């Protein structure tokens, strides 16, 4: 796309007008400049994020040598993986329930399942803090069982998103396919496994990606459910930002950004850029 159009602009080609391009360009700079600056400064040989003093990777060594930070990252990835698996199963099953059956109080059940999407994070965090205190949830278990409370909280706010994505995909399912499979002798389980699952596969991939990033991203709810021994990456970075700004945070953040970009590109390879765009 040349900046100055060679062919005359059609009336609806708004994105080819100059001011529109400047606007989009400015928004992209606004969105990306802070991240790019952060990534550049993670290689800066200075204690402060101010002046460029030469290239170094020592803060990466420091970040990777920081046992607490590495442990926090490992915790975060474990929680995200567990929460994604359970959310996928739970979310898919809930979507099938709401799509296939008519039952008493369906409206109430449907509303309650989508509530965790709407309720503010802070209120969910408070609710889990009180809940785990009220049931005396054990806090001194060995890894990975000590991550149970956080994982449960994450599943609760992730699986409604999976349900939402899977349900909109199920709307395009032709129920005659199911009947045909049954006429040909398939059991309920076989229909589910061989007919329904392949149909909702794109939604499952999108839901898994969404759950994983939501879980990895979450700070507020985790902040209220984590104990002193169960620090996740965002909670650790928060305390580093809050109490002592070190370039290690830049390095650790850059690693996380790279992880996000890598995940996005894996999703792109699996789904194509259009399909990913359409899930939002």
């Amino acid at each position, binding site marked *: *796309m040349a900046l100055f159009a060679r062919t005359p602009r059609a*009336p*609806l080609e*708004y*994105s080819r007008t100059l001011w*529109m391009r400047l606007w*989009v360009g400015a*928004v992209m700079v*606004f*969105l990306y400049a*802070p*991240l790019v*600056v*952060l990534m550049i400064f993670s290689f800066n040989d200075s204690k*402060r*994020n*101010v002046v460029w003093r030469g290239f170094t990777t020592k803060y990466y060594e420091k970040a990777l040598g920081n046992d607490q930070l590495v442990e926090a990252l490992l915790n975060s990835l474990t929680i995200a993986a567990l929460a994604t698996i359970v959310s996928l*199963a*739970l979310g898919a*099953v809930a979507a099938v*329930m709401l*799509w*296939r059956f*008519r039952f008493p109080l369906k409206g109430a*059940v449907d509303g*309650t*399942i989508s509530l*965790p999407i*709407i*309720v*503010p*994070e*802070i*209120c*969910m965090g408070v*609710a889990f*803090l*009180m*809940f785990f205190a009220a049931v005396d949830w054990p806090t001194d278990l060995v890894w990975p069982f000590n991550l149970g409370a956080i994982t*449960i909280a994450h*599943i*609760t706010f992730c*699986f409604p998103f999976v349900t939402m994505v899977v349900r909109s995909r199920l709307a395009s399912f032709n129920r*005659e396919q*199911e009947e045909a499979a049954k006429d040909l002798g398939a059991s*309920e389980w076989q229909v589910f496994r061989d007919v329904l699952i392949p149909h909702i596969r794109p939604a499952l991939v999108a839901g898994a990606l969404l759950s994983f*990033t939501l879980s*990895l*991203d979450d*700070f507020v709810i985790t902040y209220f459910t984590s104990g002193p021994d169960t620090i996740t990456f*965002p909670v650790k970075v928060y305390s580093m930002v809050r109490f002592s700004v070190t370039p290690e*945070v830049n390095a650790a953040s850059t690693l*996380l*950004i790279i992880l*996000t970009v890598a995940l*996005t590109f894996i999703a792109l390879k699996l789904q194509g*850029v259009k399909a*990913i*765009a359409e899930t*939002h």
Partner: protein
Amino acid sequence: MAEQDWKTNRRVFAAVSLPTLFWIIVFFVVPMAIVWLYSFGENRGLTDIAISGTLDNYKRATEWLYVTIFGKSFAVAALVTLICLIVGFPVAMAITFASEKWRPWLLLGIMLPFWTNLLVRTYALMILLGSQGYANKGLGALWGGASWAKTLVGLEPLPTWEPVQLLFNNFAVVLGLVYVHLPFMVLPLYAALDRLDRSLIEASLDLGAGHFRTIMRIVVPLAAPGIVAGVMITLIPALGAYLTPDLMGGTDSQMIANVIERQFKKANDWPFGAALSFLLIYAMFILIALQSMRRKVPEVH
């Protein structure tokens, strides 16, 4: 084949409904109910809370201090939503009318920050806005340029540039929230604009309306559901925002979520925190009810 009655296939219904219902009740409804019950309780000691059915916590929430914080949170969230709408609408238009080749990449450009860690993004913005950061340097350079231009036409130069405080104030909170929530606004707007019947825009242009008039009279009314969705998706998390006001705000820029957090950490007043949480949830319900009312009105006519 429409929806099946649950009685016709109890075994399958049990298999899909029991795990879902178990989870949503035990790990969502029960925790929420505990918060609700505690909001009618009072502190009887350091860790001892009695649920006595008192309304004192709600009464305390109507004190001027808390009313102003609620009001301020609403004002900040509304301002953030408005800025996101003004900034995001042209972007959504540009994506909608971009060529086939470019559209997915523009969308990806908006979505990638959406997937990046919120804390990392907030921290990145803080680096840029710091008193020695690039935002300040940029403003300083502009100031220097203006000063030079003034001397060029024979006027007194401007006084030397003093770095301005861009962080730890209300401005930083609004900017930070806009930064974080902009993708939330653009994506639903794009979804609505993409469904638009383009021949209507062409008709409007053919009949002599200008581009601006066409956008205001044709595009905006037709995209109204998407605009409302974008507004809600931005407004609700902005209202409950904790991280941005906490990290980027000053002492006077606390929002309601920060006050709630303090009741559970420093102030250790769980019943009052529970009452504030539920007031925030009620506020969300009111917003959503208003939205669904708005949606139903045109159908009446």
